[in-house]
């Protein structure tokens, strides 16, 4: 799989300590956050500096070895898995290189943890807006690769809206800067094309990201609904009314109960069929009127109670339950499939009803905890992965849910990426001509197809893919 002597050559670059080859060491790299996929890398190399990272990529280019860049491994699409090839771990590149308060940006290495950046700039009244639930562990480099989202992306936009420039090393070892700190560049928007390329276009060496001023005022509300349908209708009504919450999240009863039974208990009503966690922010003047309009829309849709967080601690507690919901589900069963799909927002009530029906028919428990305001669903199913019959039912339910979302005019991923998990759906969303265009774009960045081979676009869509040595692995 990998050429003889590569291990020693890599050790010469990064030090023997940072080339992992023993099965025990590799174990942590065989999966990401999504159960069901296990790929064994041949080795893992962990450069400690930008220069080492470049040297490693150049060495792999000379030896024509395929490799997979990886951040914290919290991805949820099987994207950072390497099958018999090399994992390039970037966690050791974790310096914040510059914080420019006046211009509101920061330059960070790819291994900087998302939440650490926000913590570092907090004294300046700033934060980094994209806030995936895994933000206490996931890295900015990984966020860039996946074009990560999060609850507050409803108002503030996803990762691509916050990246000003990237210095990347391409598969052939060329270092190039995409974008600029001024936001203006000549030529094609290669920065925009790069963000979300799932490690197929290049390795981020540093990212210049926008910092966002903390809002003047924030109101966080919890609305409690007797049915999922009423919560879905309230969501559609809030969006249709022209209100723009900073976040609008939904959690259904199985999720609420999992959270309330965990150490992350947030005081959610366990008898509610669903709750909406809604945050409004902006100027203090007029904010309470908007809170009243949102509360009115919720009550009109059938909310039993709408309460507004009374203190910052109360607010943090409400958010903690939401952010740690996936973790809380871990207590329920040994395995959890966290899914991701997007539908038009007016279709929420009927698609959620359909998901409920699919869950009942397949005999699985679907826990919905998701970014309702964007129509970005996360139907999750806790299960026992050691039970083949149950695993099969879970897989079947997931396929049916994805099909329902496609049929509603949606997409199979809003923020988790295609990786390997969503590959089968790509031909359902795009024609062969479009998939071919994606392959051609990839080939511009990595003509030898050595970076993260076999991900994002089904291989057969890429003409002459069989000719690419990396893909044969």
């Amino acid at each position, binding site marked *: 799989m990998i050429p003889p002597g590569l291990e020693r050559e890599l050790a010469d670059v990064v030090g023997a300590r940072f080339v992992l080859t023993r099965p025990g060491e590799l174990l942590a790299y065989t999966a990401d956050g999504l159960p069901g996929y296990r790929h064994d890398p041949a080795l893992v190399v962990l450069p400690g500096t930008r220069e080492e990272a470049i040297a490693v990529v150049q060495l792999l280019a000379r030896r024509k070895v395929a490799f997979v860049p990886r951040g914290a491994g919290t991805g949820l699409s099987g994207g950072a898995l390497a099958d018999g090839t090399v994992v390039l771990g970037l966690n050791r590149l974790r310096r914040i290189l510059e914080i420019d308060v006046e*211009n509101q940006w920061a330059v960070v290495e790819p291994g900087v943890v998302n939440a650490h950046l926000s913590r570092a700039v907090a004294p300046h009244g700033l934060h980094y807006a994209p806030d995936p639930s895994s933000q206490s562990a996931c890295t900015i480099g990984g966020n860039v690769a996946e074009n990560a989202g999060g609850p507050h992306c409803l108002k503030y936009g996803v990762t691509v809206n916050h990246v000003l420039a990237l210095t990347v090393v391409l598969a052939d070892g060329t270092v190039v800067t995409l974008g600029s700190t001024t936001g203006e560049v000549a*030529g094609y928007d290669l920065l*925009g094309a790069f963000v979300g390329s799932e490690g197929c276009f290049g390795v981020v060496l540093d990212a210049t990201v926008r910092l966002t001023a903390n809002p003047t005022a924030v109101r966080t509300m919890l609305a409690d609904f007797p049915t999922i349908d009423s919560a879905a209708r309230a969501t559609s009504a809030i969006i249709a009314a022209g209100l723009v919450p900073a976040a609008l999240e939904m959690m259904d009863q199985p999720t609420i109960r999992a959270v309330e039974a965990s150490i992350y208990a947030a005081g959610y009503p366990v008898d509610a069929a669903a709750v909406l966690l809604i945050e409004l922010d902006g100027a203090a003047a007029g904010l309470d009127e908007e809170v009243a309009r949102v509360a009115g829309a919720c009550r009109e849709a059938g909310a039993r109670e709408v309460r507004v967080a009374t203190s910052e601690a109360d607010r943090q507690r409400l958010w903690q339950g939401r952010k740690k919901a996936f973790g809380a589900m871990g207590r329920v069963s040994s395995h959890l499939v966290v899914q991701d799909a997007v539908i038009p927002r007016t279709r929420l009530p009927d698609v959620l009803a359909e998901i409920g029906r699919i869950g009942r028919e397949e005999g699985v428990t679907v826990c919905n905890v998701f970014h309702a305001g964007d129509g970005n669903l996360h139907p999750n199913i806790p299960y026992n992965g050691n039970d083949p019959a149950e695993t099969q039912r879970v897989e079947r339910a997931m396929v049916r849910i994805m099909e329902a979302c496609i049929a509603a005019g949606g997409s199979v991923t809003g923020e988790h990426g295609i990786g390997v998990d969503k590959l089968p759906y790509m031909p359902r969303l795009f024609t062969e001509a479009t998939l071919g265009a994606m392959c051609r774009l990839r080939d511009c960045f990595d003509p030898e197809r050595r970076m993260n081979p076999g991900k994002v676009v089904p291989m057969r869509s890429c003409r002459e893919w069989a000719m690419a040595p990396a893909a044969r692995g």
Partner: protein
Amino acid sequence: MMTRAERGARIIESGGGPAVHHAPSTERELIDLLQGAGPHVTFRIRGAGTWASVTERIRADATLDLSRLSGITEYVPGDLTLTARAGTTLADIAEATRANGQWLPLDPWGAPTGTLGATLATASTGPLAATLGLPRDAALGLSLVDAAGVRTTAGGRVVKNVAGFDLVRLQVGACGTLGILTEATVRLRPLPAVDRSCAIPLPAAQSDLTALLVSLRQIPLSPLAMEALNPALAACAGLPPAQMLLVRVGGSHPAVAQAVEALARHPHTTEIPSSAWPVLSASEPADAMSVRYSVRPSQWPSLWITVCAASDASARVHGTPSRGVVRVVGPAETQHRVQQAVAPLGAVEIAEPAGRGVTGVPALAELGRRVRDAFDPQRRLNPGVMDDGRS
């Protein structure tokens, strides 16, 4: 009805001669045109011709006029998304969405008869881009016909989507060189309940200008737009001919009232009608020659003062402090003088019309060349545009 071969023949005959004008009214016609023409027949792509200077310099065998490929094809107000054909004008979209209290906040300089397709293809921006985003952020999905006459798509119709590589951002701003845009789905926003604007005189001294911008950050509501105008451009918008900063605030009644009150504390601030904005945009002549410069926002006051000092009184100069941008509309002599004056500031210079390729950074130029080769190897679409002059 002509057959595909007949249509193709008509184009081929025109090869090398004076440009032939084609105005397909359906995507099918466009596909037939491209497939029927020989592989070496080149096309100049245009929308309504609002930005004539963008297309007129392109030398090609035939002109593809997409203005007839128009109309809104899907609009679900509750989803805040709209799908329209490329030739649909921004004015038509504004009218349809306004009825539902929504808007597409793309306000490129030029007449409102500019098309959606041209706005996205050229990634043209206006004052609203500073807060409401760039064309690349408004576009959710695209339909295209590629250089070989094959239909492809990019993105979808939902507001959040990471399925596959991002062909939407690749195509937006590609000036039609990677495919001809036929239809786009865009993200709409709710119209602010109240929308008010003020004009604040700009101080001449750099330190005063910096102090003004810092103090404006303290107003409790972030503005929808903040655009500096030189006297010539202010006059175009029907405002007194003086250097001024227009500040537009939108939102709920109490929030806007409080913000306008805060703005009014600056001496000589006057409230101006919201209609000044469209008048300002539409005042740009179709044959405008413009260059824009950008620096770090903190360097904007110095860029602004330098550019204004180097421009003659008739040149139109405007700038967006939060984006670090200053744009100059004026004849070549003015542009040359400004370029000389700005050089020491190290600003990024973008010559408009959009569509110049990368020069000076070999690795980036090489990537751009590969992209063009991958999507339009024969250089059939807008030849010469987005090229670095080497291919």
